[in-house]
C-alpha cells in the first residue's frame, strides 16, 4: 500500500490485500516467516518532498480474539527501474 503525508490533504491506496484466517494457521503463528508476492505498479513512485511524501509500506493488521488489534508497518522504497540503486 502507499499513503501520502505532509501539510495538506492525505491519500491512501491499498495495492494488494490478503486476508488470512485462523484456519490458515491450525498450529498458531509459530514465528516462522510468512511470504507474500505481488507485482508493484510503475507509479506512484516513492517521493519525499517538503510539502508531500509518498510512502510505500507493507502493513500487517493482526486481529486478536478479544477485539484488540495490532498494526505493524514496514516501509520500503519504490523506484523506477532506470533509477540508480
Amino acid at each position: 500500500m502507499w499513503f501520502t503525508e505532509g501539510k495538506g490533504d492525505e491519500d491512501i491506496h491499498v495495492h494488494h490485500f490478503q486476508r488470512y484466517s485462523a484456519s490458515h494457521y491450525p498450529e498458531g503463528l509459530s514465528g516462522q516467516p510468512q511470504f507474500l508476492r505481488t507485482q508493484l505498479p510503475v507509479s506512484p513512485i516513492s517521493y519525499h518532498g517538503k510539502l508531500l511524501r509518498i510512502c510505500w509500506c507493507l502493513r500487517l493488521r493482526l486481529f486478536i480474539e478479544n477485539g484488540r488489534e495490532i498494526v505493524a508497518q514496514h516501509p520500503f522504497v519504490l523506484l523506477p527501474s532506470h533509477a540508480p540503486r
Partner: protein
Amino acid sequence: MPHGDSNPFCTRFIRPGAIPFRFPQDQNADDLVQRLRAGLRGAIVGPHGTGKSTLITTLMPTLRHAFGGRVLRQQCSSQGRIRLAELHRMIARAGDGLLVIDGFEQLSRPQRILFRLALARSNCALLVTTHQPYAWLPVVWRTEIEDRLALGLTAELLVGQAEYYQRGMKVFQRLWAQRRPNLRETWFAMYDDYFTWSTVTHGQPIR
C-alpha cells in the same frame, strides 16, 4: 502518536480530532452538551487554530447520544462556499435533531440571515464554530490555549523524536511566542523546521 520517520507535525498527527480536545479539570463534554440542550442553539467561539474543530470532533459521540443519533455535520471553508440550498436541505434532514456547522463565519451575512430564518421555522437544534460571537447564538464554549497546554501537546507530538526533541521544544517556544494563540499555524511552522532539520541531519530526501 507520531512514529517512524514521519514528520511529527504532518496533517495525519495534527488534524482536528487526531489529538482529543483537553477540557479544563472542572469541565467536560457533558456540561457543554447540557448547555446546548437547554437552549437548542449554541456557538463555540475562538480564534484560528485554537481547537474549535477538534472540540466538535471530540463532542460528536456525546452529541449523537444526546440527540438520538440525528446529528449532521457540515464543514464550511473559504475555498468552497456552501450554497444556501444545501443548508436548507440539511435543516430538513436533521429534523428535530442537531445541525453542526464548523466555520459558520464563512457564510456571507445574507446567507446567515436567510439560514437563521429557515432555522426558526424548524425544530432543528444548532451548534456552530465561529471566530466571532453572534447575538442570536449563545456562546456555549470559548476556545483558548494556555502556554502550558500548547507546550504539553507539542511535547506529546515529539515523543519518540529523541534527536529532535530538545531543538523542537526550543523552536516551538520561539514560534509560539510569534503566533500565539494559533497552535495550528505554529505546528505548520514546526513542520518546516522539522523538514529542514531532518534533511540536514539525515541527508537529502528521495526525489
